[in-house]
């Protein structure tokens, strides 16, 4: 080969490689801006039917009001959202707004403090519901005395019961001031249960109040299942009260008082058993109980069974809260949308069932922004709908748990207690203690990571 040709080819190859390597990466996710002045805000949440109210109601309304701000709504699987947020931070491609930002991400300073925006626009912390005031970073909106997220709605996690089945079984009606424990729950479930080989005639006493889905996360025992410091599963999740509650739930399972005994899980059903009038009691948001009533059921709303006798926290709760990421390139526009979502949009978003398979877009609870309770549709609902009024009353029963980095991960192992007993032959005590040990390991790991932030 001639020297010149060789050198020419080598130089071309080298320059070509350098040019290719130095190309900036295309920005993924956000669509191209429509014009020079239009800004696109990306918002991440779980998507799907649960958040369809954004696409169908809130975003069109906002974009009409702010034509220069386009909203790109991205749904991310709930199990993956936290990891996706963290990797987006590492990659430098964060969304503008995200729901349920992991606590360690908040602690690492990756969400904007909203206090200045709130002060500028005349929004006070006191304008928000009691759950927000608890100051707990875990989806209640505050960390280190700064507002880190704004809630859209505030949701109760209570018990809905079928009044007709209760009356048939000779049981009293329950109201918002009534408290039941698991012994009473079992007694009611036995009274309501109507065994039958025929599914059409079968009525179950209750849905299974699985602790990890209901009581553990929602502080329905005293002490909290992770202790006062949120770090100690051992001794708190497997104390005498919890063993008693597990024993009762296992009894209900063995006596076939719940659909779980038949291997029927509510999410597998084409139509929910409670809505069909085939179950006496189940867990519920406000949206669920209103939906059940709209399907023709005669329903009532009350607190869930508590694990500890006399404990007042018989209702769980959470806010759907969004945060603005510090890496957002358009924080002002992101604030406008977040403010709209929190302080205006809920007026036009109907109530919708979270658990009972409704297809309608909507929120499962009332707005957390209290001034909306005195306006329009919301004020009418509170004044005229007894179930809505009951939910407002039950809101005061919520006792927010002590902060812990991630209660779901901590308690996750307790989903396996029944399987450990029924499939692996453990005693109930062994199974609960095994789950508690795993819970403790998981909690220790979570705290280790959380505590290492900023050191």
């Amino acid at each position, binding site marked *: 080969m001639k020297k010149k040709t*060789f050198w020419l080819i*080598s130089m071309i190859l080298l320059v070509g490689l350098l040019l290719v390597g130095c190309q900036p990466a295309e920005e993924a996710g956000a669509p191209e801006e429509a014009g020079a002045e239009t800004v696109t805000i990306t918002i991440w949440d779980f998507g799907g039917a649960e958040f369809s109210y954004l696409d169908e109601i809130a975003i069109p309304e906002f974009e009409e009001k702010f034509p220069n701000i386009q909203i790109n709504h991205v749904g991310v699987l709930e199990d993956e959202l936290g990891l996706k947020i963290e990797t987006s931070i590492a990659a430098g491609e964060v969304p503008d707004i995200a729901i349920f930002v992991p606590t360690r991400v908040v602690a690492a300073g990756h969400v904007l403090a909203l206090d200045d925006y709130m002060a500028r626009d005349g929004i006070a912390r006191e304008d928000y519901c009691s759950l927000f005031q608890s100051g707990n970073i875990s989806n209640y909106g505050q960390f280190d005395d700064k507002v880190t997220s704004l809630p859209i709605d505030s949701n109760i996690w209570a018990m809905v019961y079928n009044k007709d089945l209760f009356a048939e079984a000779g049981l009293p009606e329950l109201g918002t001031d009534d408290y039941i424990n698991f012994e009473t729950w079992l007694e009611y479930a036995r009274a309501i249960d109507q065994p039958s080989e025929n599914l059409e005639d079968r009525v179950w006493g209750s849905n299974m109040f699985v602790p990890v889905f209901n009581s553990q996360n929602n502080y329905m025992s005293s002490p909290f299942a992770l202790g006062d410091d949120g770090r100690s599963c051992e001794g708190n999740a497997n104390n005498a009260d919890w063993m008693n509650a597990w024993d009762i739930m296992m009894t209900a399972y063995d006596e076939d008082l719940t659909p779980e005994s038949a291997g029927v899980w509510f999410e597998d059903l084409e139509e929910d058993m409670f809505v069909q009038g085939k179950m006496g009691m189940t867990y519920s948001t406000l949206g669920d109980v209103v939906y059940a009533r709209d399907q023709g059921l005669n329903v009532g709303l009350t607190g869930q069974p508590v694990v500890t006798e006399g404990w007042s926290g018989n209702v769980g709760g959470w806010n759907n809260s969004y945060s603005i990421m510090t890496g957002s390139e358009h924080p002002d526009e992101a604030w406008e949308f977040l403010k709209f979502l929190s302080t205006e949009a809920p007026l036009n978003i109907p109530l919708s069932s979270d658990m009972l398979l409704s297809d309608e877009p909507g929120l499962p609870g009332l707005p957390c922004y209290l001034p909306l309770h005195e306006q329009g549709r919301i004020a009418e609902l509170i004044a005229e709908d007894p179930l809505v009024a009951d939910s407002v009353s039950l809101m005061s029963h919520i006792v927010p748990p002590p902060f812990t980095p991630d209660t779901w991960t901590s308690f996750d192992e307790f989903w396996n207690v029944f399987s450990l007993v029924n499939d692996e032959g453990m005693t109930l005590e062994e199974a609960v203690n095994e789950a508690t040990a795993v819970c403790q390991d998981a909690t220790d790991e979570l705290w280790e*990571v959380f505590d290492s932030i*900023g050191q």
Partner: protein
Amino acid sequence: MIERSRKWIFPSLEGQKRREAFQGYLFLLPWIIGFIVFLLIPLGMAAYSAFTRWVLIDPPPRWIGLENFRAMFTKDKFFWWSLGITLKFMVMTLIPFMILGLALSLLLNQKLRGMNFFRTMLYVPAVVSGVAVTLLFMNLLHPEFGAINIFLRSLGVADPPNWINSPDWALPAVAFMGLWGIGGGAIIYLAGLQNIPPHLYEAAEIDGANSWQKFWKVTLPLLSPTIFFVLITGIIGSFQVFTPAYILGGVTRFGPGSKYLRFYLLHIYIKGFQQGRLGYASALAWILFFISAIVVFIIYKQTERFVYYEEEGKGSS
């Protein structure tokens, strides 16, 4: 100027040789750049980060010396647990799969019609994506509807295992999945078998050796380098189990990172990418490297005793 630079780089070479050497390295340059950028630099960063507290969402890394290693040995319960799971898996699978692979290769070494077809069919599973294989076995091993338990029930087993949903059977289920890939090992054995000179078998036959004696005295010794290779790669492969653990762990009732399937590599992944503790995960990875290196070194030391190289006599390398 070019000639001067060549003289500077290759002072001891003259003229044409210098030019050729320079051109050779120029052609090697892309690989060298890749080696430095994608191997050396990451290795260096991994070595550095193992001594730092480096959290994904809380950079920059901060030097903490041996703290990661101390925490690993004294505080991290899953460190020892995941090593135990990995070693148990190795014990369950290494020798049995080597024996099965060898048996399969002896079958494939027969001179029968259609043998190429069988060799191809048995090797194809080894090249199928690990994710696809795991998903396939996820369905096969379903406690209620999986084909394996249906088959076991048809044989009269009233209570077949819950497989990945059982603390006792989750690891054997993953080991069972490994059978899918024994075709790969069998092909390697097959190559070794076909390198054994036929005249040795002829000589053995003349001496009155039966099949077993031929296998034990001729086949095994001359196949020992191949067996040694499969053993080393099998050990390294056991330390690198990730895909089935990650996918199956995520769908078992025990949840992601299920402790019964918490292989060491999965533990590294959980620490590094789920918990964002990159420094600690780097330290774990280096421990894996050293453990693997020690194990392979110990086995290499046994080469003289157990591996026979025909050209220079037993145990020569």
